[in-house]
């Protein structure tokens, strides 16, 4: 589904590093193919499969609700 993502790169408060870990991360966007029946994530656990089934119902109702 359309998803808003918010990231930050601050270190965790419990990070014991003496030096501020000033390292960048990369972000990349690609168009993914539709999730196939043999998709690894979909079949990883029964919970995942039911989540995708929920999505199918969600998208039947349209995007804006």
């Amino acid at each position, binding site marked *: 589904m359309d998803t808003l993502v918010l990231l930050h790169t601050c270190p965790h408060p*419990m990070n014991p590093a003496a030096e501020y870990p000033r390292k960048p991360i990369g972000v990349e966007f690609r168009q993914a193919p539709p999730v196939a029946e043999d998709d690894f994530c979909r079949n990883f656990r029964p919970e995942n499969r*039911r989540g995708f089934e929920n999505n199918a119902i969600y998208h039947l109702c349209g995007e804006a609700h």
Partner: protein
Amino acid sequence: MIPAGDYWVKTIAKDQVFRIVDLEGNQAADTLFFSAADPAERYSAVDTIREQGNVYLSTGTRLLSTECNVMLEIVADLVGQHDTLGGACATESNTVRYALEKRTMHACRDSWLLAIAEHEDLKLAKRDITHNINFFMNVPVTPEGGLTFADGVSGPGKYVEMRAAMDVIALISNCPQLNNPCNGYNPTPLEVLIWDPV
């Protein structure tokens, strides 16, 4: 008394002592705390866990707010550990965890939503329903980092007691979940006591 599957909400004044009793054993008490002065300040599981360096709650735990203020301190506990990682059951999570047709089964989140709908004076909205504590619930963290809803560690008559460090609104869902062992597949009543300091 909070009947099985029902909710309970009450303001506890600073310094009062608050006890929840698991009358028949193995009954999860899904609990939210809000600052009575400003309900936008609420219980924070992440701050509580980080500051005490322990994922379980027991005697000595200070329950911290989103502002890192102490809301309550646990002063007595006959169970030994309480969960704050497992979250509360919702009709949505029931569909994923158990089966799509479980959506219509009664869940904690529905009880909380009913509570805030029936108590508009609390000025709480759906978005205020966030981190919670599962008193009497056993959710062991495995060495691999997994979580399981295990059989209860609590028993009949066991209780947890805390002293309020500020005026707090306590909102409890006496968990109606029937799909995992958190209530021993048989939800039962809880008892709540509040008294003034001696």
